């Protein structure tokens, strides 16, 4: 055990994509090093492998699991997570937190496309929990989000929150093109540059009281660098997607 956590350290830089959606992420906190090392993954072009082939595992069962290394090529980290804390000490690949139901994933670097998003053909993305990305997120972060919160401390790619059903995405950098298209409900909150998508309509400028509660929580629980100006600030509210239910919103902070 290393400070109450289990640590998985990448043995060598990856050269092929690795699909980790088959790992029982929700069960990892209860497993010992051998149990974690025997979890199956899929290596592109090579086939079946186990986590122990790719990572050195240190520690005993602990509520917090930390992955160390450049995991840009590892897809599906935290898939199906339902509790506990999962930390990625580096970058993460595609489909971070796919089908996540609870718990917290913290990525200390960047995340590739589809963080918290629905897998292809699925009706919904993550249904609970929180994802905090300290860097930037790729396209379609939170696409199909059903419930839960995604925080991106820097920028997001195109189609942020595409087809959201509910939940909240907060972006502290710039938001890529076409945010919130086809969303039914849910909130995209932007602290950097943002161009609202065409089927969104301006409603008003106000101070949403729930954002103050949300930001206070994020600052205390996840050490998100929220400023007093953001806490007390005014936001432009856009309602949409008006081609869908129209109960979604984009909130753009006015610096």
């Amino acid at each position, binding site marked *: 055990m290393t400070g109450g956590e289990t640590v998985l350290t990448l043995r060598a830089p990856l050269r092929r994509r690795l699909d980790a959606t088959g790992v029982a992420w929700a069960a990892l906190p209860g497993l010992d090093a051998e149990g974690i090392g025997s979890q199956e993954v899929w290596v592109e072009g090579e086939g079946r492998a186990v986590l122990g082939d790719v990572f050195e595992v240190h520690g005993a069962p602990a509520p917090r699991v930390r992955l160390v290394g450049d995991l840009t090529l590892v897809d599906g980290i935290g898939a199906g997570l339902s509790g506990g804390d999962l930390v990625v000490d580096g970058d993460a690949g595609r489909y971070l937190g796919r089908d996540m139901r609870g718990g917290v994933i913290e990525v200390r670097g960047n995340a590739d496309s589809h963080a918290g998003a629905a897998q292809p053909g699925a009706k919904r993305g993550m249904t609970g929990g929180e994802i905090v990305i300290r860097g930037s997120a790729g396209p379609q972060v939170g696409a199909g989000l059903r*419930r839960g*919160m995604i925080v991106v401390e820097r920028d997001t790619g195109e189609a942020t929150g595409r087809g959201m059903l509910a939940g909240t995405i907060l972006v502290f950098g710039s938001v890529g093109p076409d945010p919130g298209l086809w969303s039914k*409900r849910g909130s995209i909150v932007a602290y950097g540059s943002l161009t609202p998508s065409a089927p969104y309509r301006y409603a008003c400028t*106000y101070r*949403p009281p*729930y954002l103050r*509660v949300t930001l206070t929580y994020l600052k205390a*629980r996840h050490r998100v660098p929220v400023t007093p100006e953001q806490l007390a600030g005014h936001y432009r509210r856009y309602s949409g997607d008006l081609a869908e239910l129209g109960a979604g919103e984009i909130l753009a902070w006015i610096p």
Partner: protein
Amino acid sequence: MGSALRLFGDGFQGSKVIGGKRFWRIPVMEGEFLVEEKFGLQKGIGGGNFLILATSPDAALAAAEAGVEAIAPLQGVILPFPGGVVRSGSKVGSRRTKGMVASTNDAFCPTLRAVTTTALPETVNSVLEIVVDGLDARVVAQALRAGIDAACRDGIVGITAGNYGGKLGPHHFHLRQIMSPDGRAW
């Protein structure tokens, strides 16, 4: 509570889960009302108050705002009126309309000085009230003391309180006692 109040939103309400707690967002004319879906209840004390007697409406408002600012950070109390300030203080019952629970506090209305039994000194031209609700008598008294201290400024002729003939409940906050040196013992 929140799960019942949300229905006021008439289908326009929405919810958010923050830190494991569900909140309801209800659109209202002022902007948005936020309420937790579930929260605990306990008996408290409502209606602690003081009246600010001022030479002008501007002086009354400035004093009231100073009082609100002093009370707002205190724990265990709320100011139930918008902005914490009451412009239309009331008396219990009515002189004319049977069954009416409350009506204008004519004794403290400057415009009625000549036609009713007034409680206002000659130089008073505007009165505002601050109402304090709290978890117990001690925190309400402390809030009244802090608010009165802050409200005593230029243009204020006097501070008093609505006693309502002692009919408004078992708790009585005597301002002379609260503001005395021993008042800190509350």
